[in-house]
């Protein structure tokens, strides 16, 4: 059974000028137990807003529509009352920069015990013992529970933040740019840890990042977001070797590869403003393959393969479906 079903999530932010910004526009995806999915896109594409919506943690000026079904139950139905029992216990999150947001005046152990006691997972000595075990699980000696965040290095603080997110034994972990501020070697350590946790604990992981190579190495599949929408979703291997949306292809082409010799190309232009209505495909002004239809009609996500969907009119052109994918210039 699907663990998490996100259906047609829309988020609007009220702006001070009285208008609204449509940050997330009909996002849907499924997540199975133990699965690792990437949510990738440039800044402002709505990836963080999407997972905050799943957590029920949107700010007060946001309006939300859509369903988040956890084991079949729509947890958004009753607002905060129906989300709260699941937040941290079933769905947990590592915020961007969490490693720098630890409480400096409390020991790391105390900070892991707190959510456990708050949610009635464990108390007193049992909680302390569990905190030590969690620290060991993320690669920190249990005795370090008595230490303060400033005594930890960056990598250890990120590990502690992961331990905190795991305090209530969640089934789903949402990680927002968990390695962005870290060095490559520490990044490799943290990614190895996250993959290990997903495999050993059966934890489902959503990795939110702008870094395609990280997703390519960690996740089985990914959703690519642009201007508030998922424009392509599919197995990682398909996205790289057979991209069916020009944005996915261009995003890979803009990412230098260690051993790649091909030219690295930027994508001209900027993403559209989301406080105005967009006519046609939101990527059309920056697309290198746009044609007449793209400026008038919004493409819908359509199946283009097994577990692979893309929102691009090119996929409707028969000759394009035969030729495009393979010669995306990425091979």
């Amino acid at each position, binding site marked *: 059974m699907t663990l998490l079903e996100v259906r047609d999530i829309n988020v609007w932010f009220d702006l001070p000028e009285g208008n609204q910004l449509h940050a997330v526009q009909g996002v849907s995806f499924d997540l199975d137990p133990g699965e690792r999915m990437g949510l990738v896109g440039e800044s402002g594409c709505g990836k963080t807003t999407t997972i905050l919506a799943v957590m029920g943690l949107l700010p007060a000026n946001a309006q939300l529509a859509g369903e988040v079904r956890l084991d079949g139950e729509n947890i958004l139905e009753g607002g905060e009352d129906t989300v709260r029992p699941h937040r941290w216990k079933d769905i947990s999150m590592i915020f961007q920069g969490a490693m720098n947001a630890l409480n400096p005046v409390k020991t790391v152990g105390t900070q892991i015990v707190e959510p456990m006691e708050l949610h009635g997972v464990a108390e007193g000595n049992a909680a302390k013992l569990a905190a030590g075990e969690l620290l060991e699980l993320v690669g920190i000696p249990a005795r370090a529970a008595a230490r303060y965040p400033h005594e930890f290095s960056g990598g250890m603080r990120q590990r502690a933040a992961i331990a905190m997110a795991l305090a209530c034994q969640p089934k789903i972990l949402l990680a927002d740019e968990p390695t962005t501020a870290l060095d490559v*070697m520490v990044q490799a350590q943290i990614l*190895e840890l996250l993959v290990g946790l997903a495999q050993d604990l059966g934890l489902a992981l959503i990795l939110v990042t702008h870094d395609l190579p990280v997703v*390519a190495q960690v996740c089985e599949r990914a959703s690519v977001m642009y201007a508030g929408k998922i424009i392509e979703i599919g197995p990682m291997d398909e996205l790289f070797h057979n991209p069916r949306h020009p944005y996915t292809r261009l995003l890979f082409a*803009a990412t*230098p590869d260690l051993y790649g010799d091909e030219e690295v190309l*930027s994508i001209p232009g900027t993403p559209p403003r989301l406080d105005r209505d967009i006519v046609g495909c939101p990527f059309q002004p920056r697309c290198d393959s746009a044609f007449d239809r793209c400026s008038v009609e919004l493409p819908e996500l359509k199946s283009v393969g097994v577990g692979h969907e893309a929102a691009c009119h090119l996929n409707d052109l028969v000759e394009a479906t035969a030729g495009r994918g393979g010669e995306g210039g990425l091979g």
Partner: protein
Amino acid sequence: MSQDLPAQAATAPPEGEGAGDAPDEPAKPSPLLEVRDLHTTYPIRRGMIGAIRRRPHQWVSAVDGVSFSLDRGEMVALVGESGCGKTSTAQTMLRMVDSKSGSILVNGQDITKLEHKEMRPLRKSIQMIYQDPYESLDPRFRVGQAIEEPMLIHHVEGNDEKRHEIVVGAMVRAGLTPPELYIDRYPHELSGGQRQRAAIAASLVLDPELLVADEPVSMLDVSVRAGILTLLDGLRRTGKMGIVMITHDLSTAAHFADRIAVMYLGRIVEQGPAKQVVRNPQHPYTKALLSVVPKRDPRDRSVPQILQGETPNPVNIPPGCRFHPRCPVAEARCQTIDPQLHVVTSDEPEHEAACILV
């Protein structure tokens, strides 16, 4: 002294064009930049108790014997993890901090010996591009003003019209085109990429010979990074400018730099032509570092060689080879012998590594 410096700065660009072949002097022309055995240390605060107890001052060796050179038209990348000394090396090159020993020769002149007043005319020819274009541009200045500002600070000759011409020229070179569209805008009206282009334009108006770019794209979105890097690449390919790029991103360095110098704890542990260093790494640290760089292709899941722990504190640099406590192939003698850079491959005389095992 201070009089002949501006003259030198003025004559430098034409000299640069013929840099490939020796000009007047029979001797080899001095490279644009030559850093020799550079050492930079920072004092550690002792604190009140330490001062009362007269504890000895402690020093962090941020840069501990770094040597490299750069010619006009070249781009060299200093890569390494945080704390490896790459930014300290750059700051010493710009005299933002003073070196303890060693020399930094710019066009053959040692700038470490200059008084700050004497440095001033030279600062025109050494420009820096910072990581964060949101911070390096004054929010109250229009783009045109921000780009003109360095000329006013350095009292560049010429009237308003001449300066306007230079500003427009720099904007075109930095890819802010058409200039009239951007010249009167404020930084907040620009995207991140455009802001970094404005910062680059501001560094170009003084016609620098040496550009130091400290993580120039790490704050920018993936889709615009390539544009900024291609811009820098084009600037140095005119042959008049040399670029030192500081980055933690090995993929970027491999793509855009001619040479890569890998730093670890204040030392260059391996350096050579970029492709050589990336495809045929010799130092165990370089090998490990390259192995953990995530690859774009999901099929390319080679097993990363993850080193445990993090870079040690530069206050207590390990004896012998500074990498030996984390090195997967260290031998007993690595604990005592401090390895020096030496040529490691027979076919490439410029490829050096500091490891006694290679």
